[in-house]
């Protein structure tokens, strides 16, 4: 175990959604390289409280990279410099003594800042509520092995279902598009045999809910590069194909008629 010394943090502070924000600088004299990035912020906050100042607000919970609560643009990169790693799993051994580290909230119109580094990601919930499910009310499900799912299909579905809903894809996108998030949920459900009945109605509803809150995709690929779960941009192609099919067959209109 060794230590990093003399780190300068430039942290975005913003008192509320409508307040004007600013960067504040703090120096961390010494921190263990075994500490996680968020533990470094804990240390900073303990110091701020000791000085009678307000702690830096940031979202976090499981600290094992699965709940998707943590965020942060670190030196302009969503979740920081380490590939396939959420901020909570980033450790200080990825930095060096003397570094200046810029810490900002997710930057996206669809994710308004609540306070300091905390943003509002509830637009993601609205997308799922629009159709990100298989309608299967409790009770009466057939025996699980009556629905065989080829291993390759289950694996591809699981690859997409690994999304943690953190929003790094939106934060990294120059258009603040949520296509990777939406398409990952669609791929998870649309690939499975259980998901076929609602495949096109689901796609149509989710894409249109997404468009209410987020920008448009122009195929930069930043989303996939920033994704801590390495979800492939291929899922967006699948989504576009199904969206087109949903419009051509216009199932929503027909089923209403």
């Amino acid at each position, binding site marked *: *175990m060794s230590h990093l010394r003399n780190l300068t943090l430039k942290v975005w502070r913003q*008192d*509320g959604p409508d307040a004007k924000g600013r960067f504040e600088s703090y120096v961390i004299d010494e*921190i263990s390289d*075994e500490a996680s990035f*968020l*533990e470094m912020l*804990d240390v900073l*906050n*303990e110091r*701020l*409280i*000791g000085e009678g100042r*307000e*702690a830096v607000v940031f979202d*976090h*919970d*499981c*600290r*094992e*990279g*699965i*709940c*998707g*609560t943590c965020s942060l643009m670190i030196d302009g990169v969503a979740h920081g410099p*380490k590939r396939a*790693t959420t901020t909570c799993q980033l450790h200080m051994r990825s930095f060096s003594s003397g570094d200046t580290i810029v810490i900002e909230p997710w930057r996206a119109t669809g994710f308004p800042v*609540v*306070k300091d580094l905390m943003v*509002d*990601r*509830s637009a993601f*919930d609205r997308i*799922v*509520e629009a159709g*990100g*499910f*298989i*309608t*299967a*009310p*409790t*009770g009466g*499900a*057939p025996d*699980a*092995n009556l*629905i*065989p*799912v*080829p*291993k390759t299909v*289950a694996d591809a579905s*699981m690859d997409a*279902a*690994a999304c943690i*809903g953190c929003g790094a894809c939106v934060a990294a996108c120059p258009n603040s598009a949520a296509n990777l998030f939406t398409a990952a949920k669609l791929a*998870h*459900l649309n690939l499975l045999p*259980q998901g076929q009945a609602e495949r096109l109605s689901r796609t149509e509803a989710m894409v249109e809910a997404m468009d209410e809150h987020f920008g448009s995709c122009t195929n930069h690929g930043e989303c996939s590069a920033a994704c801590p779960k390495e979800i492939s941009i291929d899922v967006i192609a699948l989504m576009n194909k199904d969206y087109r099919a949903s419009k051509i067959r216009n199932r929503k209109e027909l089923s209403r008629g």
Partner: protein
Amino acid sequence: MTALDAKIPGGPLADKWDAYKATAKLVNPNNKRRFRILVVGSGLAGASAAATLAELGYQVDLFTFHDSPRRAHSIAAQGGINAAKNYKGDGDSVDRLFNDTIKGGDFRSREANVYRLAQVSVDIIDQMVAQGVPFAREYGGMLDNRSFGGAQVSRTFYARGQTGQQLLLGAYQQLARQIGLGGVRLFNRTELIDTVVVDGRCAGIVVRDLLTGEISSHAGHATVLATGGYGNVFFLSTNAMNSNVTAAWRAHRRGAMFANPCYTQIHPTCIPQSDPTQSKLTLMSESLRNDGRVWVPRRADDDRPAHLVPEDERDYYLERLYPSYGNLAPRDISSRAAKRLVDKGHGVGPLKNGVYLDFSAAISRLGRDTVQERYGNLFEMYERIAGEDPYAMPMRIYPATHYTMGGLWVDYELATTVPGLYAAGEANFSDHGANRLGASALMQGLADGYFVLPSTISNGLAPLLGKTVPGADHPAFRQAEQEARERFAGYVSRKGSRSPDWFHRELGRIIWDHCGMERTREGLEKALSELPALYDEFTKDLRVTGTDEGVNQTLEKAGRVDDFFQLGMQMCRDALTREESCGAHFRAEYQTEDGEALRDDDRFCHVAAWEWTGDPMQPKRHVEELTFENAHLATRSYK
């Protein structure tokens, strides 16, 4: 001391649940919308209960302190979910899952609840598959299983190392569907800070909006607490940072008894602590013990790196001590074995605070690809945190607090001692006894939410039809709000010198040292003398910066630490009073010659349920006697 009645239906064990459902009172579909049900917590139990109750037609309000219901800590469960499907044809059955769970819990759980759990386990898998949970599959498309600690059959269904995530997302999606349809109203970033009881019945809850600090009331015909466990009383645990006991504790203070608080599970396979600023511990799934072998050097203080310790100088102690279960011995037993060897100087790693979990034999037997297929994401996680490659060198692991079997006392209907107030999932105490088996937490959360509560809540609501219940404008709500406002304003105005985290860390140290893996009368008495002093300091020297308006995470933490203090005192009292060793509760004074837990069935074959008296140091103990008519009350042996 009064005896508690669990209201277990009569008849043979295997028929109780069907008999209950056949006679439970129902609410007509048109009348269901006249009832409002408050569900607190959006993990497996809360999300599945809220979604199912809304599907049935009840008006449901769901409260979560997270920004989204999908963040609940169920999401972090890795290994799997048990179900008595017997898809492997290896002799599994509902009876066997029942027996394994009763035995795993060291005969301190309630037979009828456990049997029901084993029965509905098979429905859970059907339900989750229908909802699109991408469980692991065989090449022919059928579901795959793995084995877990405490079982000799393969009955664990899994989705890579992210089973909890996939099950929670399944339940969350059912919930989201109901939110979209208007069946559930979602209150996110909203934390329960009190429950309200009017004329002996739960009338609703008082909540705090974490974005504005506003305190308000919600009235309902029934309230469900699905708010998880209290493992964070230890400060360092595998629980998420925000997991807390507040909802259960505030209900306890209003009359709901708290059962078996000393039953806290220490999980054997976590990454050891590496530095003093550490905020939490990370679990590595127990499923790793399917293929990993646990060992320490035979010689104490052996500083050689793992690969330089020859085979005959390694002690594969679980295989040596428990030949029939080997590396899959239950959690409490594996944890204590690790602690003893580390205490004797056999620990490995820079701080000598771990044991090895070695995959080299599995890699040479199965090939690296197969090992990667099974555990790839867990290996990556380990490398990210520990900075070492587990394909090349053994993992280092050590036990850490993981799950709490204790919780709000509930009867067969999952009703607490306050009518109208229910507890589900880890928040209740009923199914795991003194020790939970791996892959059973997900099973219990979903059993409670999908299959048990929807039946039992209808039975409780039917008699209320046509009666008026207190609304949120009732004076009892006003008074509870006022008390809560004063409490939170009080934290801010104390202006002491120590942060809530500082107190939490100190609290955790006392609890871990004296009420952790091994407990003694002397240690518990010491804890019970130190805790009130530290709590007194907390009430005087706490420092919370900022105000009680708007987002203030320091203030949120202060409220939670306050409740952890009170729970901690009760936990130590419970551990002190239970003069036996059972499951995860190991009192050093009560052990067999070879160091195994020594139960005292004559004096302690019961549930201890504590009543709040106003003084956290003086709770009142009640008991529910446990009777074993089907499982054979025997000394647990995994040898």
